[in-house]
């Protein structure tokens, strides 16, 4: 990679692309990209069960000198209303940001905003 090419890659992954993938394929895709130093913004976030699987897989992939894990922030699924539950309508998980933990740091998160800092000096390997 030339000096000019260096930088932080920030990829927005569309809802369409994510819907095409099975949970297994989605998790493989995310981990591969993140291990390559990319920050992903998923238009359609992961379900809580997928998030837990991602944590489990991340732990299996940690390499102490090159990959220390992921930083992942997003909002959980909206609670369906009584009538939505009655009609069997489920709410989809919302936007989620995932990146290498050595590159991202969550500063603040509340109900309305997630503030994340990118630490370019540390950079992904």
């Amino acid at each position, binding site marked *: 990679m030339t000096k000019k090419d260096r930088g932080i890659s920030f990829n927005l992954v569309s809802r369409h692309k994510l819907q095409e993938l099975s949970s297994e394929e989605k998790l493989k895709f995310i981990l591969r990209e993140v291990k390559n130093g990319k920050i992903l913004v998923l238009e359609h976030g992961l379900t809580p069960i997928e*998030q837990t699987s991602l*944590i489990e897989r991340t732990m299996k992939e940690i390499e102490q000198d090159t990959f220390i894990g992921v930083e992942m922030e997003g909002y959980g699924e909206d609670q369906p209303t009584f009538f939505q539950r009655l009609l069997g309508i489920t709410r989809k998980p919302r936007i989620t940001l995932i990146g290498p933990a050595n590159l991202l740091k969550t500063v603040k998160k509340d109900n309305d905003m997630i503030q994340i800092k990118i630490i370019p000096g540390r950079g992904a390997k």
Partner: protein
Amino acid sequence: MGIFGKVSLSTILQKIFGKKHVKIGIYGPPNVGKTTLANRILRDWTGDIMGSVSEIPHETRRAKWKKDVRVENGNSSLVMDIVDTPGITTKIDFKDFMNTWGLSKEEAKQRAKEATEGVIESIKWLEDIDGVLLVMDSTQDPFTQVNVTILGNLEARNLPVLIAANKIDIEDASPATLKSAFPQHPVVPISALTGYNADNLYSTMVKHFSKKRKKKRR
């Protein structure tokens, strides 16, 4: 003496409608006081302890459990198998153990390796429990991804969750923030260290974990 003799009505109702024996996992991020709380529960009800505690994160790196802990609440009681799980996190950097806690490189790497295995073990235990005592640090921001992920996972499985808002002995603790952040679950403020409000936690545990629910398997 009534028609039920010495047996109280609540005991009879519990026998008909409620569970008598459950497996409860103590979950949460590292360093929120899970083992301190497990030790508190065991000391109060069995006279034993679960494990060692430390300020250094990931002190508990293997799940530990104690069977048949009978917790009483007035006339009703619940027998629990208590599982103290390693802290769940999305990242583990051995350099943190060196720079922040002064461990040698070898010790830090070993601790980090065991900690990753601990997280995997904690997640695996989710398949095998009936309810969760989710420990949160009431001096910290409650909306961490680990808290949100664990709660979402348990809700998807329809497992009962009781949030222990720990460390209320510390001046800047704000258990009210936890209550407003997660209104869909019971939140009990507690100091696992001093035992403050432990009685309230025990009575809520008996009531909440006795309820029969249909567990969703994944």
